[in-house]
């Protein structure tokens, strides 16, 4: 029997995440960052509505949301997700981070707003901190 080797440096082993971003290049980079850290499933959606639907199906440990998306933006999606999943951490990962967005995001149920200037490794570190709460 082949033994499953678990890299202790990969903290995300067994975790699931949904990445919601309308830009496929950015979405793939985020997904790769989580999968490289050992996350079991990284579901991807390209707008808030699809992200909510996907989260209903896979019940992730964490959701990351872009802010500016077609159909349903990140704040609208966060509000729906918060109603559906009161304890699931939500990170808003955006190019539009400022105090106004932060305030609106917190009201919508977002746990953390991170600028897309944040290194992906730091994003994953924050994800672990939130999941581990």
């Amino acid at each position, binding site marked *: 029997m082949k033994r499953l080797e678990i890299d202790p440096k990969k903290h995300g082993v067994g975790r699931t995440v949904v990445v919601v971003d309308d830009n496929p290049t950015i979405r793939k980079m985020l997904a790769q960052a989580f999968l490289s850290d050992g996350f079991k499933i990284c579901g991807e959606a390209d707008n808030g509505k699809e992200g909510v639907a996907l989260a209903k199906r896979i019940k992730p440990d964490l959701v990351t949301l872009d802010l500016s998306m077609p159909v349903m933006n990140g704040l609208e999606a966060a509000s729906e997700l918060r109603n559906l999943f009161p304890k699931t951490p939500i990170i808003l990962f955006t*190019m539009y981070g400022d105090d106004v967005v932060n305030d609106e995001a917190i009201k919508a149920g977002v746990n953390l707003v991170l600028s897309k200037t944040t290194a992906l490794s730091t994003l994953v570190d924050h994800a672990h901190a939130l999941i581990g709460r």
Partner: protein
Amino acid sequence: MSDEKLKYPKWEAQFQEAILEPDRESLIEKIQEFEAAVFVRLQELSSDHDHHDERQAIADAVSTLRVVKKDKLSYPDWKLNETP
């Protein structure tokens, strides 16, 4: 457009192509190309505390395209900085 004439060759050409694009479907592609280029550049700058002028230029470009996405592509806005 030659990259040699651009101050920020890693993303500025994509921005200019996006704001000049009249076709809706092509505009979506151009904006995605710009945003991907900016994201890659921001990741490069994430461990660098300099380049303040470029960061401001990126912020200005992103804000401009936010309006384009709202007005031309009907993206839902989030009422940022709107006065009652």
